[in-house]
């Protein structure tokens, strides 16, 4: 009997691990930033480089921080959803134009629409490193106190908006 049970057990263990492995997403790296203050930056605005934006300017409101670039293909897929989101809901969306040419970025916004209240420039990718960005697009949700409450890696889908972003934003808006 044992002769059959041992290989069977080994098989089951292996199958369970492989099965779990199938559902893992190695690209979803848990962010160490959740519930931590949004890293400081002072970055030039895309449309007015002489003006700078810092996270402190946004204190007291819930805002989305969306990392994008004109060279990023998934950003193009995500863009219509952000556009609609910006139109439908009164949420501040700040864009981090990541390692991009300002001219390319401006053209991109002109042709595809601009969902951002403000976009800031990070040509060298330093703000990106401070926010642990590794795959554009990424979207952070930051609360009234300036804490990062959620990080989304990859393009935001319409379903994500309904299931994740809207409930979370409503909850954060309700906080004092």
């Amino acid at each position: 009997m044992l002769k059959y049970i041992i290989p069977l057990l080994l098989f089951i263990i292996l199958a369970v691990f492989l099965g779990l492995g199938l559902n893992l997403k190695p690209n979803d790296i848990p962010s160490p930033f959740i519930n931590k203050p949004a890293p400081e930056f002072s970055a030039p605005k895309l449309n007015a480089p002489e003006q700078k934006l810092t996270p402190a300017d946004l204190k007291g409101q819930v805002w989305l921080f969306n990392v994008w670039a004109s060279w990023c293909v998934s950003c193009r897929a995500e863009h219509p959803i952000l556009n609609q989101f910006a139109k439908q809901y009164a949420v501040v969306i700040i864009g981090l134009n990541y390692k991009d040419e300002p001219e390319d970025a401006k053209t991109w916004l002109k042709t595809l629409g601009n969902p951002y209240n403000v976009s800031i420039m990070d040509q060298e990718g330093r703000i990106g490193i401070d926010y642990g960005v590794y795959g554009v697009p990424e979207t952070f949700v930051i609360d009234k106190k300036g804490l990062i409450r959620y990080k989304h890696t990859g393009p935001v889908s319409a379903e994500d908006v309904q299931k994740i972003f809207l409930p979370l934003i409503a909850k954060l808006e309700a906080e004092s």
Partner: protein
Amino acid sequence: MKPILFIMLLVISINSHAVDSRQLSDPKQQESYETLTKELRCLVCQNQTIADSNAELASDLRRQVYEMLQQGKSEQDIIRYMTDRYGEFVLYKPAFAGKTSLLWIAPVVFLFMGLMTVFLVIRRKRATAQLNVDALDITTEKQKKIRSLLEKGELS
């Protein structure tokens, strides 16, 4: 000629490094740079270190390591800086902690299990060989020889 060429190509590929290798004036810092870039994971191409990868992010992270070393930061400072931003996952050598203990202990456990299996299999084989000889129903010279050979085998 062909095998030589092949070996040469292999050697070249081993030595290939990401293009923008930097030089620090202090050899000790240079050493730190080399170790750190070989211990940090490129998060875009996850099975490569930032020393190996030519992804943009890897090159930015190399720049970051380089600049921090120039500012006189220690290896630990830099590792903390990276884990603060990218989490434990950025380390190819994660610290020994509750979450990573399985990672560190598992190889030893598996090695032990393997050794145990080998040991048990050998012991069982020997026992059956002995049994087979005993089961022989004749006491001839041959049987004696077999037994002595088996015993010798056990001694060696």
